[in-house]
């Protein structure tokens, strides 16, 4: 199945793109998907522990099972206010 990952702020700078597709076995968790992402784009690893991840508009935990077509957002430390 295909999912896409969208990047913002520092994650976009490090990824060199604002979006990227991942091809994953169905039933893959976010955790596994991120492993693949960090393998494909090692520069993103520096944000690994400080970032949060969303599917759609909601934050999700690493054990979330992804579905085809999911849009994952890579949310580096936010700085609003």
């Amino acid at each position: 199945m295909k999912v896409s990952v969208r990047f913002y702020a520092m994650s976009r700078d490090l990824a060199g793109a604002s979006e990227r597709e991942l091809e994953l076995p169905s039933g893959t968790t976010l955790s596994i998907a991120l492993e693949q992402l960090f393998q494909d784009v090692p520069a993103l690893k520096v944000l690994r522990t400080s970032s949060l991840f969303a599917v759609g508009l909601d934050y999700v935990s690493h054990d979330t099972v992804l579905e085809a077509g999911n849009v994952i957002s890579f949310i580096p430390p936010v700085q609003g206010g």
Partner: protein
Amino acid sequence: MSTQIEIVLTPINREQYAVKSPPHNAGAIVEFFGVVREDEAGSAIQGIDYEAFRDMAEHQLQLLIQKAIGDHDLLDMLCVHRIGFVPVGAPSLYIRITSSHRAEAFAAMTEFIDKLKKLVPIWKHPIPKDQE
């Protein structure tokens, strides 16, 4: 109750959001403006360019407001965040909380801002003073 959130690209105009008449059980209104300071991490800036994942920011603000209202029994709450370029001295954030008693409003306000700064997908790009 007229809860609202807004993410705007234009200056925050407090008057636009004025409470015509607060609910009659209102005893406290607390307002907060977060203003862009003249320096960011020690360097002089002309302003900050705020980037947002706008749909998610609105959704997360809405979740945080619902939680604040529930946790602190608030009567009304409003949050406006400006994005895009915000010059030094201008507010990037405006929050208003109305409650029966002041303690609830202050507790809700400080908790809400702390959570906003952890969970709402908005990022700062400071623009140095000497950059055109």
